[in-house]
């Protein structure tokens, strides 16, 4: 993405940072502080918020947010693990973050609801075409923002359902470059939709 001058958002499980296969704090800090990426909250260990009681959820969210702050990061967006969130937990998240991303893909027209953002998650086995067509339909449909999510790269042989080969990722980036589309961290993209 750096090659294409694109930036994005890392949604990290702060309790798992540095574990095998996960990014380290040094890498996360470098991406935000040196390359202007955004770091977003995603709970400590990808706990589903509808499986925690209210106190557990609040404690988890506060600790996760605190972990990011202690690293000198500025988290403004939160991604719901598996898109699940009981209604009474939303105020807790909104007390910490400005944007909440779920896990359903839907059209977002301006004015967008920043506490109920959708996204398309790349699935193992896809070519670049489903993502390209989703973006083209979004442009033709006057959508204000399109969020595409990638969970892993080059791990499809390990049985993951959401791993993207680097070659396909490059095709998607080339397509975005060809169309001169703005690729921004989530917080900046949401702010940009509110300019007009």
């Amino acid at each position, binding site marked *: 993405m750096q090659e294409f001058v694109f930036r994005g958002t890392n949604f990290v499980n702060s309790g798992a940072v540095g574990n095998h296969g996960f990014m380290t704090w040094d890498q996360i800090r470098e991406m935000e502080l040196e390359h202007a990426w955004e770091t977003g909250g995603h709970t400590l260990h990808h706990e589903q918020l509808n499986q925690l009681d209210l106190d557990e959820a609040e404690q988890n969210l506060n600790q996760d947010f605190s972990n990011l702050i202690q690293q000198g990061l500025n988290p403004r967006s939160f991604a719901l693990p598996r898109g699940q969130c009981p209604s009474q937990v939303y105020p807790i998240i909104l007390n910490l973050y400005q944007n909440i991303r779920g896990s359903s*893909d*839907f*059209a977002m027209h301006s004015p967008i609801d920043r506490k109920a953002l959708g996204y398309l998650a790349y699935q193992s086995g896809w070519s670049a*075409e489903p993502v390209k*067509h989703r973006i*083209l339909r979004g442009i033709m449909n006057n959508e204000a923002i399109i969020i595409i999510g990638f969970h892993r790269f080059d791990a499809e042989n390990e049985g993951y359902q959401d791993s993207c080969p680097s070659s396909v990722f490059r095709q998607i980036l080339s397509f975005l470059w060809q169309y001169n589309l703005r690729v921004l961290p989530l917080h900046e993209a949401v702010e940009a939709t509110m300019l*007009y």
Partner: protein
Amino acid sequence: MNKARFLLLASLLVSSVLTAGSLPFYAEWQSLNSMYYDSIQSGKELSWDELYRAEFGFKNLRYNRMNLYLALATEQFFDESHIKLKTLILDADFSPSWILSAGSREHGYGTDFAMDNLPVLMRGYDSYNYQMMRLNSLGIRYNLDSDSHIKLDLGGNTHNQPCGMISYNRQSHSWNLALSEEIRTMDSHWRTPVSLTSFSGALASPNLAFKASGALAILPGWDSTKAHHELYLQAETSAKVAENTLLDLGAAYTKHEYAPFESSRYQLRLQRPVSEKIELIPLCQLSTMDSEELWQYRLLGTIKPLPHSQIGLYYDYSHFTNSKGRHSIGMSLSFGLDLSDADIGM
């Protein structure tokens, strides 16, 4: 929603309802709920799109020499305060020929085309297809005769988009024409000055209706923006081809200096009632964006149980060239109450 805003909204609604019998009050509710299965996105769940919109206000409320048009709207947000002033225009008649107006409204080029609204909200919440902006302005209008006028608007918005616009409008019972020249200090995309020359017009006869709109944007070289021009054109026609059957053709074209560089849409549709309140509208649409082509085939059925109200149900199949397609079903609602037709004076 905080208490103050809730009370303001509640008082507006209550006072509107209480006085609706004597004021040109109107209210609209529109929604579009759709679900799709995209056969190219294997492993992905069904997607569900929802769009909601509500608007209410007063049309042409006259008091002595003053005239008020007020529209408040909310789009998508119903569990928090998000009422926006869509339009507020105050006109003052100084003489039969001169009218001064002030207020705030959405402004742009290309609006109210049927091809964009089948079913309602299909293309989101944007009222205009090109160069939409918020225009807060002071205007002065001179009536050349009973059918035509010229108007000068000066204004802008908080996004550093001051503009000046001069327009000419002429209308008769069966046609209308509007021409305008606008200068903005900032284009909505390029953030550099732009000149916008536009036309719009419509023609209606018992068997044929035609509507067209266009704008030519000329951007001079400025900072990193190279001198260039952009073009927006849209037209649609509706012809009565048999008893109770309309054949409609629509086309829209936009050329930018940024991607998508060229985009166009062509729509062919039939409108045929199958009973007094039920109409069927099959349509075919080709959308192009540079080298990409999207074909859409839609069957829309509409039921009109009451005046200003419509329920729409549709099935839509669409696909890019040489690609698997998307199946969509949806339901749209458009309910309205409009007491403004009588143009009630006070």
